[in-house]
């Protein structure tokens, strides 16, 4: 598959995530949309990694074996970070719900002060 397609798929996914963040007011759904964006990036990273592997495999099939592996490791680390982020983020949402009995981000306007 040409890498173009993957780029556009990832862009579309990312934009859907952005639209979700912008339009929804439920903190949990906003959170999920952020996950969609992260996954869009992940997809693109994997696609690029495979693209580079293909390029180098075509150039020097015997010598180069590990090209593009960094991209996939990046995805792995992004997942690590996402997992950590989700655990903390959900804890925050739970506490917010406990305090104001809502998960509407429009109530969270304390940043103004």
């Amino acid at each position, binding site marked *: 598959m040409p890498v173009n397609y993957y780029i556009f798929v990832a862009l579309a996914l990312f934009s859907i995530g*952005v639209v979700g*963040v*912008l339009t929804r*007011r439920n903190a949990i759904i906003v959170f999920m949309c952020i996950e969609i964006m992260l996954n869009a990036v992940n997809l693109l990273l994997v696609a690029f990694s495979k693209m580079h592997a293909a390029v180098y495999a075509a150039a020097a099939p015997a010598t180069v074996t590990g090209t593009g592996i960094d991209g996939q490791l990046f995805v792995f680390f992004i997942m690590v970070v996402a997992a950590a982020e989700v655990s903390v983020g959900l804890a925050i949402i739970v506490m917010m719900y406990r305090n104001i009995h809502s998960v509407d*981000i*429009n109530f*969270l*306007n*304390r*940043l*103004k*002060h």
Partner: protein
Amino acid sequence: MSKIVALVPLLPLLGFLINGLLRKQLSKTAAGIIGSGTVLGAFIISVLLFIDVRNGKTGVVEFFPFISFDTVKIPFAFLVDQLTAIYLLIITGVGFLIHVYSTAYMHDEEAPHFARYFAYLNLFVFSMLLLVLGANYVIMFIGWEGVGLCSYLLIGYWFKNPQYNNAAKKAFVMNRIGDLGFLLAVFWLLAKLSTVTYGEVFSADAIKALSQTDITIITLLFFVAATGKSAQIPLYTWLPDAMAGPTPVSALIHAATMVTAGIYLVARTNILFSMAETTQHVIAWIGVATALLAATIAVKQNDIKKVLAYSTVSQLGYMFLALGMGAYTAAVFHVMTHAFFKALLFLGSGSVIHAMGGEQDIRKMGGLAKHMKITYFTFLIGCLAIAGVPMFSGFFSKDAILLSAYEHNKIIWGIALLVAALTTFYMFRLLFLTFKGSFRGTEEQQHHLHESPRAMTIPLIILGVLSIVGGYISVPEVFVAGGDKLGQFLAPIIPLHTHAVSHMEEYALMGGTTLLVAIVIVFAWNKYKTYKEETNGAFGNLLENKWYVDELYNTIIVKPINWLAGFIENVLERSGIDAIVNGVGRAVQYSSRQLRLLQSGQVGSYVLLMIAGMVLLFVLQFFLKK
């Protein structure tokens, strides 16, 4: 030349530092001794230097490089030659006498102020010595500015009187106008020759490198400087006002030394001036115009010091007239004799004022000869000397000037003769009104009249003697062959001037002048031996009000500048600059109040803005790439 020459200015500087820093601790006696002693020390060294110079030992003493960049090297160096030696003697000699005189004259001041006075006076002597000792124009400029500062400080010595302060400011500002000319001339020299050292500037090579225009402009700029310092038209009005200072200050600064700095400058630069015919004409005409203007004003003044002040301006005009004729020696000669007799006259007037308890109006004096014989006689000698009565010093110097004027330009000579007559007239008017007739002051003043203390009379006597014998160093050739000792002495610096006038003519001129002076004295005696209330005609009023020159300057210079400053303050400053500054503040305040609405605290709107920003950046990138 040994480095001992440095002591000449350093001693007064030391006196200034001691008197200035310890003025609260020193007693009046100590301050007086330090002030006078340091100048006496400088005088003694000056005499030694003078003897050296007479034996032909002249030269430059270099101390350290003062300014040094690229090819320009300006050393801190002193030049001791014939001209400097004469000035050194005048400054330290007359300066010492005036210091001694001051110890008595200023005795009513409190000790700290007394010491302050001597500190200023010493600083002045230091600056003046620096001015004449400097081996280049930059060192001279340091002294030039220094004397201006001291003049300011001493005119405003009684700083509690706002009028005196104004007089001091006026003197300072007018001097500054002239100083600008000095600076420009120095810059011009630097630009053309990249040196300001006398020896190099006057060398044949350097002069070849200057075009005629250069020389004319440089000399004119120097002359502008001289008009400021030496009170010539158009910058002379500060000198009469400068009489606000203590009388010894007037004697030292505004008669004997500082005001002759301009003559020194021109005489020092005589090689350039001799090559600039235009400048010579300008100098001669401005000199004679100043002499006439000041003399006419002096006729109608009633303040004893004002008369002397205008007389000084007039005599300075005489000196410039001589400079303009190329008679530099005559000018320097007149500087010297004038230093003697004008210092004498000022000190004498100080003695009178002292006796009168501060009264300066000659209409309220009269008959003082009976009470203060020494002052009267010395004052009489001063008057005879300034009038140019034969055998007194003024006769010789004035005659030398008149002779060169007669040689060059008969019109100028005629005016100069008229000025001589006027000078005689107002001086004897002053003498008769002050010392003859009957006393017109209050009872109390009459009771108080007394001869001044010895510290004041002894300088008077010494100056009186000098006013008589001072002229004999340059006796005209017609009397004694080779009598022009001064001219011969100055010959290495100022080419010897030979008169192309026959002896018969010269005798006739002297006789005519003397006759004129005698007639004027008799006329003055008849008019003023008894005092009568004077009623002024229109012309008299004009003279008494000094030709309304101050008013003219006020109208054409001070008022427009004030108006301009007011305009700038009220219009440009308030509604221009202030409006811009305040407007910036107001705009920021307004826009920030609007922008604050963006900070809603809504995370959603923040994200929206972020996205908008990203889009904008992408679009920009997109279009910039294309």
